[in-house]
């Protein structure tokens, strides 16, 4: 095992992490401000990817496809917020889990009905194809490097928005005291819709970005959804900072776990047994990480006291 390989794997973990962050940020904002568990967040990811694939096929432009993913996911977000989600803010978590579980069923089969059962094609733009050579002679995919950049940029933008802008102040106020911001004359239901649309747009954006190097298909949002939940739970629900750190932690654990665990077991076992045991453990690693974090800190790394 060379250091270069380890660095490359760390970059891969980072890239996976920042993409998870795009998903997790919306999820954690929505929970922090509205107190809502949204299982349908993965469906918004899927909506973004499908919208991007459809627009890319029609226009051939990746940038337009990304814009489409933002718009479509935000639109879908507003739609379900107005029709369904806003009735759930005052309900207990159980009702929220079930209602949004129902939304998953509707979204998945609805997308299949609209786009068919076969995966769609979405490709990275030609100018991001291929690799670049980083210091130490590491050859790394241009597109993945761009993903890391975009992800960090979005993260910085989010932090700026929350810390510096008027809407950010309202969001933070909303996290602390819901009645209070209502009393201060802020239009709560508009604020909630906006936050939900923002979270949805981020999810859709992530769907499009990832869709370009994966397969755009029905159900693609669910594995990501569960990972995003793991992320925000590790980070502490409601904390954007926690979401970022949790996302990177999960990204690194998963990537490096898949890479290192079979090798570690290889030191004490036969190669095939090590591959098998190591892979099994690697697929459980992030859940073990999450359970471990919660046992030490029952409200996540950056959760309230």
């Amino acid at each position, binding site marked *: 095992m060379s250091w270069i390989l380890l660095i490359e794997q760390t970059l891969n973990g980072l890239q996976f992490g920042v993409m998870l962050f795009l998903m997790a940020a919306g999820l954690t904002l929505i929970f922090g401000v509205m107190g809502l568990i949204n299982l349908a967040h993965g469906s918004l990811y899927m909506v973004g990817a499908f919208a991007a694939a459809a627009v890319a096929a029609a226009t051939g432009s990746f940038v337009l496809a990304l814009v489409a993913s933002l718009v479509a996911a935000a639109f879908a977000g507003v739609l379900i917020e107005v029709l369904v989600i806003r009735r759930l803010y005052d309900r207990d978590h159980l*009702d929220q889990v079930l209602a949004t579980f129902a939304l998953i069923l509707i979204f998945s089969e609805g997308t299949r009905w609209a786009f068919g059962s076969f995966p769609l094609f979405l490709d990275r733009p030609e100018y991001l194809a291929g690799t670049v050579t980083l210091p130490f002679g590491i050859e790394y995919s241009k597109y993945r490097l761009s993903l890391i950049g975009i992800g960090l940029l979005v993260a910085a933008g989010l932090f700026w928005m929350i810390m510096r802008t008027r809407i950010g102040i309202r969001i933070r106020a909303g996290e602390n005291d819901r009645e209070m911001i209502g009393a201060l004359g802020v239009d709560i239901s508009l604020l909630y819709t906006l936050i939900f649309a923002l979270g949805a747009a981020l999810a859709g954006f992530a769907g499009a970005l990832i869709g370009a190097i994966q397969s755009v298909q029905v159900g693609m949002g669910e594995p990501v959804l569960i990972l995003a939940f793991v992320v925000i739970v590790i980070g502490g629900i409601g904390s954007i900072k926690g979401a970022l750190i949790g996302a990177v932690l999960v990204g690194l654990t998963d990537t490096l776990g898949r890479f290192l665990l079979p090798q570690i077991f290889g030191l004490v076992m036969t190669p095939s047994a090590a591959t098998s045991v190591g892979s099994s453990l690697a697929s459980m690693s992030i859940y073990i990480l999450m*359970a471990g974090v919660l046992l030490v800190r029952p409200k996540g790394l950056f959760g309230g006291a």
Partner: protein
Amino acid sequence: MTKETLLNAVLLCLLLAVPLIAWVSDEPFIITLTTRAVIFAIAGIGLNFALGFGGLVSLGHAVFFGIGGYVMGILAYHAQTYTPLMEWPFAVEGTKSMLIVWPVAVVVSGLAALAIGALSLRTTGVYFIMITLAFGQMLYYFTISWSTYGGEDGLSIYVRNTFPGLNTMDPIQFFAICYVLLLIVLIGVHCAARSSFGLMLRAAKQNEERVQAVGQGPYRLYLIAFTISGAITGLAGALFADLNRFVSPTMLSWHTSGEIMVFVILGGVGRVFGPVAGAALFILLEHSLGGLSEYWHIYLGAILLGVVLFARGGLYGLLAGREVAHD
């Protein structure tokens, strides 16, 4: 007789009458379908014990359902291949007798619930939901890569387990076994709900502070409720595996957890008979919606959404009104 008691009686009679009519008119598939509803009902009753009585929203109950299934699958697999389950420290043989499989399934899934509960109950609220989900995923991926017992392919058991004096491969006889178990579980849960434990547990769901002020720690109450809940769901898992003569990791997927929760909500959270009504309704919906369209999940989702948004309290809330405080 209250409305609720009447509804309970009607429900139990219907569940008995449908397969009997199907038996007379030689429609064995209807019997199988009803058996499925009965087994789902038991799983739902299990979850309801934690969710309805203790307020513990577990999104990982598929684990116990799956463990029950795998207990049955593994015991039967060793019995049908004539290989011992383990040889050290003492030899254990597989078995195909339901009378042994059930208690083992109940004990193993109960112990799993005890362990998972002991860890998970350190958290509350959303964190509890998510940590149960995490344990669910952990075991799901474990079974997928557990190649000794088929991994993702699962385990096929070619013939159902045996019960003294009955032919379990006959749909109506297998139904009878499940139905009687349902009755036993119902009676047990009904008693437990109004027992000392039940009173204290349901009080903890309403107000933990109150329970502490009368000198009881909620943690122990929750943990025992969670253990019993897991054990009941495990029993359902063993029956389900026997019904299908097959177990696979699908039983442990988070979709299964979601579905078990759906039974409870459709019927009515916290009502002893709620999950029975919920499971029956679910099977009925599946059966009738499936014929409508290839995209029937859309309708299922819409109905579920409607229930959550507009018919709180589920079927029981709709038909029997608010729960009578005590009789």
